[in-house]
Structure formats: C-alpha cells, structure tokens
C-alpha cells in the first residue's frame, strides 16, 4: 500500500509539472531545489469571497470592510508541505467557504491562491479537473457519495477519471477501503451504510489517488467518538507519510491531532497556534501513550480559552 501510494504520488507530481510548464513558465531550476526550500503547498494572498451584491451582500471570507480603506483585508495563509492544520470557528465563520476555494471547487471573489506554486486562477477547466483529481483529496461535510453506487465503485471513481486500468483500480480501491476498515462493506450502497461508514467511504475515496493534499470539511462531524478515532487514526497516518492535511472541526478533541490550529471569526483568521513541528510526525503518533493520557480538557482550557 505504502509503495503504491508513493509511486502514485510520483506520477501525480509529473502530471503537475506538465501543468506548471503550461501555465506559468518556471525558471530552469524548479522551486523545490531552490535556496529557499520547497514552495509551500498552499499560499493564499488577500483572499475574499462575497455572495450577492448591494445591501444583500454576504462577506463569507475576508472580513468586514476596513473603515479607512474601504476594502476588507482578505485572508492570508501559508501551509507548508507535510503540515497538519485544523481550522476552527463558529458556524458561519467561513470555514467551508475557505475550504472549497482551497479544494478548487469554488473561485474567490478576489485574491490569489497558489497551489504548489501554481496560480490556480490561471488554470482552465480541464487543468482544474486534473488538479482536483491528482493533487487534492476532498472529504465533504455531508459525505457527498454518488447515490445508488456501491462503496467499491465510489472509491474506484477518482481512479477511473485518472485513467487507471480496471484491475489496478480495483486493487487500490480495495486497499483504501481496508485502510478505513470497510473491507466487508465493499458492495454496499450509500443508503445501506451508517453515517460513520459513509464518511469512511468518503475518506477512502479522497485518499485512493494518494493526493499530496487532503482537505476534510468536518470529517468527524457526524460520527461518534469511536468512529472519530478511527477516521482520525487514518488521517494521522496519512500525515505521517508526508501528506499535507487541512481539516475543519468544531471539536477540540479533533483539533488536538493537528500540528497547527487556525481560528476563524467572521471570515478572518484571528489565531494561529502551532502544536508541533510541520515536518515531524503528528502529535498523536509522536508519543501515543502521552497523547492518550492527556486530558482533552487541557487543550481546550488553554488554547480555546485564550482564543475566545
């Protein structure tokens, strides 16, 4: 599995190099080898998203207008390769809006979004579909499984769009389902699965292409604590293998797994707390015994209290 994933990653990488060469002719030496280290996976500058116009305008992202300049400041965010970021904030604070833009599912009203150094705004429809397919694994707040389709076919779908052969596709989809503990549910349709199982199918679908980046919008929002631990364990392991993870959560218990916690209020980042180094293993895997022994309230007592 590990080997399959890394070989897949290599292929995805070449795919994106092709993309980069087409959109923004890069200098001879690629940024990864440059003196300033690898380009950040995510680099967001002055990002804003508004819905509607006139009096009915909703500023979902970027905060309220600056009283002096008139324009809102927008969101700035840099996420390094291998980081594990939890995004928190009250309902309606713009978390999903940010996530959808990061996942190339939506376009910002203004601002720049560089994914692996490529300006996403300059990509055409076809290149965007390649990016979504090869670079990003997206887990939705509301599962979003294809209706009336068995779990195995769900998970095979991204591979089918990537042009992977049927036998190879099936093998990798089965491996991904086994990874999330659903080896015995491969023939079940979404309406025959529990909420937690559906969410795990969605996670399997997101990681089956071995994307460099996993974006998860409240992946544990509908799960009990047992399933939450299962899903988080999968995500922790993915991060430990070098994948960048951004997840949205309302729970401190979940945020504890991340290396870095962002807090959004009214479409702006108001706090950014680092809990572990970006290039090490995630907190839960660094010292499992200590992590398990730690009272969940300790974190929310300090970080949560300070940020509120």
């Amino acid at each position, binding site marked *: 599995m590990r080997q399959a994933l890394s070989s897949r990653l290599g292929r995805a990488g070449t795919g994106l190099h092709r993309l980069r060469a087409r959109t923004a002719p890069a200098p001879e030496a690629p940024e990864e080898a440059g003196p300033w280290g690898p380009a950040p996976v995510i680099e967001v500058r002055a990002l804003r998203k508004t819905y509607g116009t006139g009096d009915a305008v909703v500023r979902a992202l970027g905060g309220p207008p600056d009283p002096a300049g008139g324009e809102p400041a927008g969101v700035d965010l840099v996420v390094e390769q291998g980081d594990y970021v939890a995004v928190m904030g009250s309902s309606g604070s713009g978390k999903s809006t940010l996530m959808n833009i990061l996942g190339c*599912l939506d376009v910002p009203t203004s601002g720049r979004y560089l994914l692996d150094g490529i300006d996403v705004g300059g990509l055409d429809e076809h290149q965007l*579909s390649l990016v*979504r*397919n090869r670079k990003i694994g997206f887990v939705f707040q509301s599962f*979003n499984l294809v*209706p009336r*389709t068995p779990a195995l076919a769900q998970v095979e779908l*991204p591979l089918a769009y990537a042009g992977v052969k049927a036998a190879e596709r099936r093998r990798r989809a089965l491996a991904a389902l086994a990874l999330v503990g659903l080896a015995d549910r491969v023939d079940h349709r979404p309406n025959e699965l529990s909420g937690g199982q559906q969410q795990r199918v969605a996670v399997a679908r997101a990681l089956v292409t071995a994307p460099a980046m996993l974006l998860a919008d409240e992946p544990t929002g509908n799960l009990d604590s047992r399933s939450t631990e299962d899903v988080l364990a999968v995500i922790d392991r993915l991060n430990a293998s070098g994948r960048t993870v951004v997840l949205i959560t309302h729970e401190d218990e979940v945020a504890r797994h991340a290396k870095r916690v962002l807090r959004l209020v009214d479409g702006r980042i108001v706090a950014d707390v680092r809990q572990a180094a970006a290039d090490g293993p995630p907190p839960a895997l660094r010292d499992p015994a200590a992590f398990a022994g730690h009272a969940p309230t300790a974190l929310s007592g300090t970080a949560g209290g300070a940020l509120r």
Partner: protein
Amino acid sequence: MNPVEILRFAVGGLAANKVRSGLTMLGVLIGVAAVIILLAVGNGSSQSVKDSIEKLGTNALTISSGGGFGASSGSDTKPLTVDDARALADPASAPDISTVAPEVTTSQTAVYNGTSHTVGQVVGTYPAYFKTSNSKVDKGDYFSADDVLNSRKVAVIGSTTATDLFGTASPVGKKLVIGGTPFTVVGELATKGGTGFQDPDDTVIAPLPTVQNAFTGFGPVSQILVEAKSAGATTRAQNEITTVLMGTHGIKDPSALDFRVSSQQSLLSTQSDTNKTFTVLLGAVAAISLLVGGIGITNIMLVTVTERTREIGIRKAIGAPRGVILGQFLAESTLLSLLGGGLGVVAGLIGSRFTIVGIKPVVIPASVWGAFAIAVAIGLFFGGYPANRAAGLRPIEALRHE
C-alpha cells in the same frame, strides 16, 4: 478515459433507474412504431385502391349520360340507347374499339327457397361486359350472345349474393326468383373484394333484353362499357366515341356534349390524389406521436440532469473532466433513444404485418430510417443540451443545487 468506460458509466446510470429508463424507451418506441405503421397503412390503402382499379382493366372506357361542366341541361339531353352502342360497335367508324357492352342497372330482391336477399346491383348487359369489367367466372359459365338474342332468363351471380342465398352449396343450375321473374343461375363470379362503398360481389348479371323486359323497360341504358383495343389506344378510342355519339345525338358543338367518357386511368389519378391526402394526414398524426415521444426524452433528460446535478458536482469535485461527464449523459440519452428507436422499428415492422381495418399495410422504407434517425437526433440534442449546461457549472454550484 476511453469510450468503453464512458459507455459502462452510461449503462450503470440507466440501470440505476430502470423504471424511468423503461418508460422513456417506451415513449420513443411508440412514437417510432406509430410513424412506421400509420404510414404503412396509408401507403397500403392507396396501393389496394390502385390494385382494385387496375383489376377493372385500364383499357376500359365508361360512357355515361349527362353533360360536363357548363353543358346546357334540360330537354335537349338525349339518353344513351342500345342504338348508340350499336353505332360504336361498327369497326368502320370506330376502329380502336374492340368490344361494346350497353348496361342497365337496377336493384331487386332475389328469393331462393324462402331465403330472400336484396341484390345491390342487377345488371343487364352483353357478354363483352365480363371481359371489360374484369369479372371472371369461378364456377359454371358466362351467358352467351345466343342467350342475349333469345332473351333467356339466365344469370351469373356475384360471390356475396351466392353465399347469402345458397350458403356453401354451388348455385350453378339452381333457379332463383328475382323481382318475381325466375332465373337459372349459370355461373358464379370469382370474389373481387374491395374497399369501396358498394360491395362489388353483391351483383347479378343477366342478358340485357331479359332485364329490360322484366324490370327497366326498353328505354335508355344506364351506361355503355367500351373496351379499347389496347391501353395505348384508349385516347383514340375516346375521340372516336365522342365523334360517333355526336353524330347519333345530333350535336354540333363539341363543348356541349350530353354524355361523358371516363377512362379507368382518369379514375386512377383522382383516386391516388385522394389517397395521397390520406397518407399525408396519417403521416401528420404519426409525426405528432413521434414529437410527443421526443418531448418525452427531452423531459426525462431535463429531469434526470436536474436531479443529478448534485451527482455531477460530486463527480467534478473528484476530478471528472467536463468531457467525460458530458459523454456519459450523451451516451445515456443516445442509448435510450437507440434502444427505444430500434425496438420501435421492430414493433412497427411486426405491427405492419397485420391487416389493419381491412387494409394490408405496406411499409415505406424511408419512414423506417426517418423515424429512427429523428428519434436518435432528438435524444442526442435534448440529452446533450441540459447535460452540457450542468457539466459547465462549478463543482460547488452543482453540489449546492437543490
């Protein structure tokens, strides 16, 4: 993604909602089958009329009394008589005429052994009538010129008359009473069949003087049946008839004739005109049913795509290129219309093997291809249009779609 894969997705999509796919297919099927069958019925009926007119013989000319348009009506209209027929039979003045048969018609009640039957047409004529009117004897024989000369009370009867009076028994040699006069049946005609208003098989044919003596009196005849020497000679024969009868009727002005000469050919062309109208009407009805089938596909595809916009969003979110999504939906609607159209062609061809309201349908090959092509084109266009719209949405827009 290769086309086979896209096709597999499409089949999966159709199988996911079997009832809806089935009903859509049924709509197309009915539309296509209706076009094929209705046009075949129209075509078949014009064919059968053509056949039955051709059965009468294309060499035949019918002379009937009465002027054409603009003719002065009234006392100076001379009726057709046996003398007129005799004049026409003279080869010197009418070399292109082979036979002449004056004809009187009446309707009488025939009785045999207590069974009575009203005969549609009792015809008094000469033996030449049989050949000219394409009436062939099936059992027994025709009456002869000798029977005519001696006014014998003999008759040849049509097959409907025969079955009504004699049942399955052979009528030949039996005596029946028509309008109080006893006749001996000498022959029975072969069944002609027909789609006309009057049953051509409900008839009794007897020597002219016998019928005149018994029923109509020795006055004018109803019409004179003339046979030209060949199909090519009918026009010349027609001119000769006009000349001869203008002489016997004492008419100088060719625009004021008191008789009419009509050929089977002119009858044929009017008939086929009527039939063309009939076929066009049926075609219009068929086209409407195809249109309704097409609207069915369009509606289903619109509903399907709208309902599945969320699914399209999901597929786009996990990296489906627009082309693949479009391909899947196009393949779905094309499969539906291909299958529906194909089954419709089969149903149409099977349906047109049966006789419908007495008409044997004759399939027009162009209608098969046309209906099938239109069904597929509608599927492609109206399936592609909404799918294209949905595939063009941003994933998040599609996902939020209600």
